[in-house]
């Protein structure tokens, strides 16, 4: 597959601006908004903004590489295109657009069960590293069916989302009277299976299936430890981009308390507020094995489809390489806690606080 990154975008904020122009108010707010007061969302940024990087000089940094490996997959950088429902609202190709970009950029794509075109179609669209992510909307048969199809279609790991037992109040959507695709289709069906899902379900999964299991949406060290005890191969620390429980902690705070307890026993995936290459660096230093990109994925796709998403990934890659150079390291292995320290945030946290040149008129609700 040969598609070039969209070179017309010099910066990520230009991609964000193009996305804003291409999306309706409803879809834009669905993508950028969060639950209730959006406190958890802002804490994701606040937690990242409270970390400073420590530059080390006079080292040979001529052989920098952001390459990483995750569950045996060799990647250009430790990035996962996070699972997002209803991606076809953002770009006509839906999840297939992400899959194609993942192949070309050589990163992982985690496919949401709530996104078109579907498990098989998305797998057929590209020859990329792929993980399937399931929302529990049925009983054991439903789960087993998805696992079997995931294995048959070359998904190398299986994620179950566990942090959205109840669908939350996204007030921008309410204010806009916006009902998005997967919610409209889902109306009336299946949420009770998600609510009932518990640790016995994980035991059953591990006894039954032979595919690495990722538990997505762990928000405390207690639950992370229990996940590892139940044999989960990876723990995906996330607050659902602030779209699950409001008034939660920033995801970096969760990573800080959890990584020391489970590092090496299970892989750690982080997401929440990642908008820059330096954000990826911070999460990796604090113990992540891979970092999920959610909104930035949507914005790249909305700006210009596969080329737009490729350009967003290219800029993240460049920012990571620059950070490596200025911090005096050539690879992820050389980084540790000595490369970060606490710092005061320098602005009010919000979703685009890392892109201060983005200044949209506030939408009045």
């Amino acid at each position, binding site marked *: 597959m040969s598609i070039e990154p969209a070179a017309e975008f010099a910066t990520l904020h230009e991609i964000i601006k193009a996305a804003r122009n291409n999306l309706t108010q409803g879809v834009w707010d669905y993508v950028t908004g969060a639950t209730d007061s959006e406190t958890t969302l802002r804490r994701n940024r606040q937690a990242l903004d409270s970390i400073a990087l420590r530059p080390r000089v006079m080292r040979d940094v001529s052989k920098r590489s952001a390459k990483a490996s995750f569950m045996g997959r060799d990647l250009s950088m430790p990035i996962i295109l996070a699972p997002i429902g209803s991606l076809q609202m953002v770009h006509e190709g839906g999840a297939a657009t992400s899959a194609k970009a993942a192949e070309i950029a050589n990163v992982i794509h985690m496919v949401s069960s709530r996104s078109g075109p579907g498990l098989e179609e998305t797998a057929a669209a590209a020859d990329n590293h792929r993980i399937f992510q399931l929302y529990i909307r049925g009983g054991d048969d439903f789960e087993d069916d998805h696992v079997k199809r995931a294995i048959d279609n070359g998904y190398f790991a299986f994620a179950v989302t566990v942090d959205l037992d109840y669908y939350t109040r996204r007030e921008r959507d309410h204010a806009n*009277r916006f009902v998005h695709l997967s919610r409209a289709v889902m109306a009336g069906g299946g949420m009770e299976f998600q609510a009932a899902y518990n640790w016995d379900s994980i035991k059953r999964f591990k006894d039954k299936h032979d595919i690495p299991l990722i538990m997505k949406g762990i928000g405390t060290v207690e639950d992370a430890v229990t996940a590892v005890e139940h044999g989960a191969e990876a723990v995906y620390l996330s607050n659902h981009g602030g779209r699950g429980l409001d008034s939660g902690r920033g995801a970096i705070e969760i990573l800080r308390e959890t990584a020391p307890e489970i590092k090496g026993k299970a892989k750690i995936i982080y997401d929440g507020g990642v908008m820059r290459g330096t954000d990826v660096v911070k999460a990796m230093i604090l113990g992540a094995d891979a970092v999920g990109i959610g909104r930035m994925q949507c914005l790249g796709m909305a700006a210009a489809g596969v080329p737009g998403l490729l350009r967003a990934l290219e800029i993240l890659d460049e920012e990571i390489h620059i950070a490596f150079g200025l911090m005096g390291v050539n690879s992820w292995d050389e980084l540790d806690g000595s490369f970060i320290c606490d710092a005061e945030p320098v602005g009010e946290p919000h979703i685009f606080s890392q892109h201060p040149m983005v200044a949209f008129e506030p939408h009045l609700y």
Partner: protein
Amino acid sequence: MSEGISNEFATIHEIIKTARMNLTQGAWDYMAGASESETTMKRNRRAFDKLALKPRVMRDVREIDTSETIFGMKLNIPVILAPIGSLETFSPVGGAADSARAAEEAGICHMLSSRCAPGLEEVAAAADNYRIFQLYVRGDTDFEDDHARRAIDNGYHAFAVTIDTAVYSRRERDYANRFVKKWRVDVSNDEQNWQALYTWDNVKRFKDTHDIPLIMKGIATAEDAALCVEHGVDGIYVSNHGGRQLDHGRGSLDVLPEVVREAKGKAKIFVDGGCLRGGDIVKAKALGADAVGIGRLQCCGLAAAGQAGVVRVLEILEDEIRIAMALCGATSWADLDESSVIPSSPVNYPSVFSGHPLLHLDANKY
């Protein structure tokens, strides 16, 4: 669960916005404002904003019980409509009766202020709801005894005496607006003095004389909470009057833990001050409150749509409570305790409605 999107008011911020349009500047500022620098009011919000809830997963949360029982009242959610003077300003037709009817419809409790129209008997007759009477002390012991007797006769479940208003504060928005409330004009200095000389001896006398649970409303220190317990008070209402009395006080939620340490299990604990969200109620419950009072949101509901507006506020709060409990892995209040919350950083400047960041109201320039 209510389906927010299909309703006229999908969110609480839409209710607040409608209330703003329906109220005069004077009435709006009386409701939204606080005393002097409004620091106490802002600290009420800050106290909520600096706590995080801990999400616990993989528990069976199909059935969530949001109810709480206090003084024999089984409340659908642990919320009481806090006592507010002159509710008729916000709901000119029904006044306090609208709050009483909303309480009945939502299955919660209304605490009626003695400074409200219609009065004690009329509001009790208006609805078959859980009710508590709240008294400002404006007379001698006969005055108090008369109100206590009438409260008992009219089915009030408990009797609250407000004690954080020994003197009336400077509400500077009202000063700037030259806004004079009728119910303040009616209060003479002599009457206000009865409040100023109210002491623990009066509490002792009340307990010796009357057979109705007594709530002291406006406790803001562990020391006074301990005195409440010592005097056999049945309910301790932690409050700084919504930031409308002593300025430069602490946020109510900052005070709650020390009161809980003194009084948990010995008296019921109520709290109000800055509660704008279901998640706020979950935090207060986790820290040991038995019920949470809703003041300004009640006014906004009334001003937006009378009884139906208040019911809609409560419906959305219930929705938010249910979601927050489920995502914290709790199926009843017993599943939550102080380990369910953890310090975190505020991410906004606190203000009266800062829990609703989508709200954009033009600032009135003074």
